[in-house]
């Protein structure tokens, strides 16, 4: 009886800890998947650029860009949508990746946008954001 009461009293504490940790761990996992996907798509886009000597000149969602790259055989069709965990080709339900270029197709911009706040979370482009590396603290 005593241990049961203790366990019941401990539940709110454990729930509180889980409420702090679980969302953050989920967010971190998603961040890692998104970064990996972004790098994979970027590399394929670069290969497309070499072949066509220009980037696609239209605004595309992540799903449409992936479809284009897969059709041109620069990307593996098994690439997963990091937000849903399903195949990116078949699942366009949750897609926070956006692509656009300039009129000449000379530059590219890949952005991952928060679905709620519309804030840019990650960005890879030809100009200012050429890598996802974060600055180290000084040695």
């Amino acid at each position, binding site marked *: 009886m*005593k241990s049961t*009461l*203790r366990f*019941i*009293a*401990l539940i*709110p*504490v*454990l729930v509180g*800890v889980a409420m*702090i*940790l679980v969302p*953050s*761990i989920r*967010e*971190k*996992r998603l961040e*890692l*998947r998104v*970064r990996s996907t972004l790098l994979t798509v*970027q*590399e394929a886009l*670069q*290969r497309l*650029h*070499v072949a066509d000597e220009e980037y696609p000149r239209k605004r595309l969602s992540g799903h449409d860009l992936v479809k284009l790259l897969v059709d041109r055989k620069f990307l593996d069709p098994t690439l997963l949508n990091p937000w849903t965990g399903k195949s990116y080709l078949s699942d366009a339900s949750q897609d926070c990746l956006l692509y656009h270029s300039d009129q000449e197709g000379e530059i590219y911009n890949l952005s991952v946008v928060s679905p709620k706040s519309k804030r840019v979370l990650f960005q*890879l482009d*030809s100009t200012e954001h*050429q*890598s996802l*590396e*974060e*600055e*180290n*603290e000084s*040695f």
Partner: protein
Amino acid sequence: MSIKKALLQAYRIAVLIMIAWLIRAHHDRMRVQGDWPVTVSEVKTFLPEAYRLKVDPGPRGGLKVLDSTGNQIGYAIRTMPNSKSITGYSGPSDVLMVFNADDKACGVAIRHSYDTPSHVEDVSSDYLFMESWNGKSWEEIAAIKDLHQAGIYGVSGATRTSEAVGESLSYRLASTQGEIQDDWQLRISWRDFALMIFLIFGCLFAFWKNPSFQRRRWIFSLVTILGLGLWMGDLLAQSLLIGWIKGGVPWKTLPGIVIFATASFLLPWASGQPVYCQFICPHGNLQRWAMKLLPARWKRPMPDSVKWAAQWIAPLLLLIVLITVFLHLEIDLTGIEPFDAYLLKGAGIATISVAVIGLLVSLYYPMFYCKYACPTGWLLGFIRKRAGKDHFSARDWIGIVLLMIACGLYWMPAEWILG
């Protein structure tokens, strides 16, 4: 002190030091290795006897290459993220450079690139180019400002990519080439003096039990709340301690708070007196004042089961701190304690909530936050010398568990948890 007590005290401080060391070592490893750690197999290509890589937290910020006997046989660096702004045709590259035991370059490899893949492949397969740095010392490579003058020529058809590789290497080595200016000048300000005064008076109230002096304790407690808390905002907190463990103790720039924090840990460890918790902590003093607000009859006895469960709050918060630090989660550590609320302007919702809820609860259950929910207080209590007989208690077991968790988080690849 008996031998058993001395051993227990040594054990307790050793647990804290080991956990701090693991956090620091992990931080150094992440600082040097980043998200894409250099592996032994990459280095083995150039140094076949490479067995282990050891993070060098020094100015070079690379990895010492050790053989199976533990002798250093070389050194390895990667150019990212220092050289992330040096782009080739369409992006920067992360380049590995390995040095041999004579500190001469013996190999270069492109680990990853944001540049055009075909160009990167062309550069990687041009052995003449990739071996251009072999035999050169760190200083020689760092001094290269013009690749052509140094006899290094770009790869035809991938000139910009190859030149970016070369520039990245020189930039990376040159960025850590300069000696770190060690500023030995201590910077002392009024805050340092103020903290020393708080510490001295805290010790006086803890150790000098003169009745007429002790009667003035209420004045000191008010001064800590208003002065140390609301005005200076210098409270010990997990965010402060973790920041120091990761970034180094700022004893030259903030000697006062360093001495203050060190004394806060060593005094209870050596004397058993909880000087900081009992006499100095503004939030503790605020709770003591809150205790006096309500009539005693309003205070509720806490059920045993709730007491037992509440004892887990502080250790579980410390667990959150460890997981946050080792997995780099986006959890603001100031939000798990109420101390930042004293900064008023800069305080976040979480820390204000913890402060307010803690105080409200302490109206009915005296000193609730101090007794059960303060992770910093838990650490200070953990190392505190016990009066009378001392033995290996539940708290000591929790210390071991926290140490084991820190070890596990340090050694376990983050991908196992984060995927």
